[in-house]
């Protein structure tokens, strides 16, 4: 696998959407290619950062209360 092919699978790799065989080939390339390794690390870090920044919000208590009332008459 060359750098271009590896980059094409960047997000599928990080999203765990690849077959074990393609994933293995990519791991092999990343182990040997520092620039690709750095790029994959960067993008992986970005996805973790995004998730961390967006998970704090939950449904407000008032909405939960209203829902239970409308659904079950409580």
């Amino acid at each position: 696998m060359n750098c271009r092919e590896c980059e094409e699978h960047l997000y599928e790799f990080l999203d765990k959407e690849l077959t074990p065989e393609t994933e293995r080939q990519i791991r092999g390339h990343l182990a040997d290619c520092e620039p690709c390794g750095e790029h994959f690390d960067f993008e992986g870090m970005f996805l973790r950062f995004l998730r961390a920044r967006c998970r704090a919000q939950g449904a407000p208590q008032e909405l939960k209360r209203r829902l239970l009332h409308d659904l079950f008459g409580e």
Partner: protein
Amino acid sequence: MATPTPTPVDQKKRASFEQEALVHLDALYRVALRLTGNAADADDLVQETMLKAYRAWDQYEKGTNAKGWLLTILRNSFINEYRRRTRHPETVDVDTIEPFAVFGEVQEDDPQGAFFDQIVDDEVLKAIDELPVAFRETLVLSDVEGMSYQEIGKILGVPVGTVKSRLFRARQALQGKLYGYAVSMGYIKGSPA
């Protein structure tokens, strides 16, 4: 039956709805908030989704993917009733938006993207809310809710290939925006995206 009194069947339905549907309330609310862009509309959208889901609960095959099923209802409700009302119709063709390679810009100075750490939650959410809706919904389902490409395709009614390309463009667009913001704040040197 005008005023239903709780029967053993109702209790059973209620218990399974609580167990399988209500546990996803926070996820539904997060997605609703990103779709509608404000708390009042997100409240209404989630409320409507849960009431619809409860009415249709017999059609849901228990023990399958309740989160995906609920998000499909939520997304359809949004498209049908909220989109036109809460946001201006979008004229931008999402498939023509040029991706901006942030890594190429920062790989010399900050290859680990440490500048992202300085960007607070509200700025990230604001940047997501500025994305076209087709990007926003794909990105939120994947990156916030952790759904698979196939699940997202099912919820949005698009092929997996479309999910993949939208996700790529959405992430690149978001990175570009956040990079531009980081540059404008002096978190990192460079030219704004």
